[in-house]
C-alpha cells in the first residue's frame, strides 16, 4: 500500500518539473522575440538616389561613409539607437540640421522617419516595420 501511494506522487512531481521547464522555455522565447535588437531599436536604410546603398541596425554604434566620388561625401552616424547625418559636403547643410531619428522621436519630426540630403541625393530612412 505504501509503495503504491508513492508512485503517483513521484509522477506528479515530474509533471510539475516538466510544466515549469515549459513555462521557462515559453518565457525565454517571448523574451527573445520582444527584446531582440531589431524590434527594440530598429533598423535603417541609406539610399543614394533611388537605390539602397546599405541597410544598418540601430543596435550597433557605427559611422557609415557614403563616398560618391567628385568630393561628394556624406557620413551617417548611429549612436545609442539614433541615426543622423554627422557631416556632408553639400552646400546647404540642411541634412546635418535635420538632427537624429529614432523610434521614439520620428512622429514629432516634419520629415518623420527620413533624413534628406537633396544636393548629394543621399537619404536615410528609419525602417518602420519589416518591409517586403
Amino acid at each position, binding site marked *: 500500500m505504501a509503495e503504491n501511494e508513492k508512485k503517483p506522487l513521484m509522477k506528479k512531481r515530474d509533471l510539475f518539473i516538466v510544466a515549469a521547464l515549459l513555462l521557462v522555455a515559453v518565457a525565454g522565447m517571448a523574451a527573445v522575440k520582444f527584446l531582440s535588437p531589431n524590434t527594440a531599436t530598429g533598423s535603417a536604410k541609406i539610399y543614394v538616389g533611388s537605390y539602397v546603398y546599405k541597410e544598418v541596425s540601430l543596435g550597433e554604434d557605427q559611422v557609415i561613409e557614403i563616398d560618391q566620388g567628385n568630393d561628394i561625401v556624406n557620413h551617417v552616424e548611429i549612436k545609442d539607437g539614433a541615426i543622423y547625418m554627422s557631416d556632408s559636403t553639400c552646400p546647404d547643410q540642411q541634412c546635418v540640421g535635420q538632427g537624429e531619428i529614432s523610434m521614439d522621436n520620428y512622429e514629432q519630426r516634419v*520629415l518623420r522617419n527620413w533624413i534628406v540630403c537633396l544636393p548629394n541625393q543621399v*537619404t536615410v530612412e528609419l525602417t518602420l516595420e519589416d518591409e517586403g
Partner: protein
Amino acid sequence: MKRRFLGALLAVVLFSSLTACGSTEVRPIVSPTPALKSQVGFYFDTVVTMQVYTDDETLLADAQAECQRYDNLLSKTAEGSDVWNINHAEGQRVPVSDETREILDKALDYSRRSDGIFDITVEPCVALWDFTGEGMGLLPDEAALSQAAAKVDWTQVDVNEEGVLLPAGMTIDLGAIAKGYITDRIADFLRARGVESGFLNFGGNVLTIGRKPDGSEWNIGIQDPLGTRDQSIVGAAKVSDQAVVTSGIYERGFDLDGVRYHHILDTASGWPVQNELAGVSVIAGDAFDADALSTTVFAMGVEKGTAFIESLSGIDAIFVTRDDVVTWTSGLNDRFVLADQVS
C-alpha cells in the same frame, strides 16, 4: 483525477505556447494588411518619398516612372516641356497635354477666387530673384522688377481645346501648384492599384492615403517656420485621406539688412510678401488645394487668410506669426495639438 488535471494543464501550456509563436509567424495570413514598401526618388528639383502598404512588387517603381513623366511634362527648364513651350511661344497658341490644361484651369480658378493674389503669370518677377543659387543675397534691379510686375496678369491666359495662348513677353511659373497636382495624380495612381494606406512626401507636400493599417489617423508634424532646426514642429495634426502643405519665409530666402527676402512674391509688386506671418500650413482633401491655398493664404495674412479658409468647407489652416503666435481654424480644434502638448 489529479493526474488528469495536470495533463490538461500541460496541454493548455503547450497549446498556448504554440499559438503564441504561431500568431506572429503567420501574421500575413491572419491579418490582411499588406507589407509596408518604401521608395525615394529625385524629381521636380526636390525629393519624393513614398511609403505604402502593398503586396504589388512593381508598384513603387511604376509610380516613380509616373513621376518622371510628369517631370518631363511640367518642368519650366526642360526644353520641349509644355511649360517651356508656353513660355517660348512668343504670342502663338501652343497645344498642351490634358494634364497641363487641367492644371492651368485650376490655377486660373484660384486667381479668380483670390482676386489675383495667386497668379501663375508672376514668372517674370520670379526670374529676377535667386533664393537658392549663386545669386542668393542679391536684390533685383528695382526698375526691372517693376517692369516685370507690370506684365503679371492672369486674365491674359487663354486656355481652350486647341491649346494655350499667352501674350508675347508673358511667362508662367507652376512652382506653387505643379508639385501638389503631381502628388494627387500619383496618389490616384497608387489607389487605382489597390493601395488603401500610404504616406507620400513630395518635397514637403504631405499626402496621406486612407488611415494607418491599424485604423488610426496619421499624426502629421506641422513645421515650425521659426524653428532653429529644420525638423522642429509647432504641433501635430491628425489627418486621413488629406494633404498638408506649408508655405513660409524660411524655406527659400535670405536675410539682408534685417529684412527677410523669401520666395512668396507679392503679385502686384514683385517683392516678397511682407506681413506678420512666418508660415501657413493648409490641410485639404488634396495636395493641389493645399499647395495653392498655402501660398494664397500666406499672402493674405492672418486675418484675411483665416476668414478665407473658414469660408471653404473641408479645409483648415495653421498660422504661425513672426512673433511665434500660433492660431488655427475652427475645424482643427479637436485635431491639432501644440508641440508642448505632444507626448
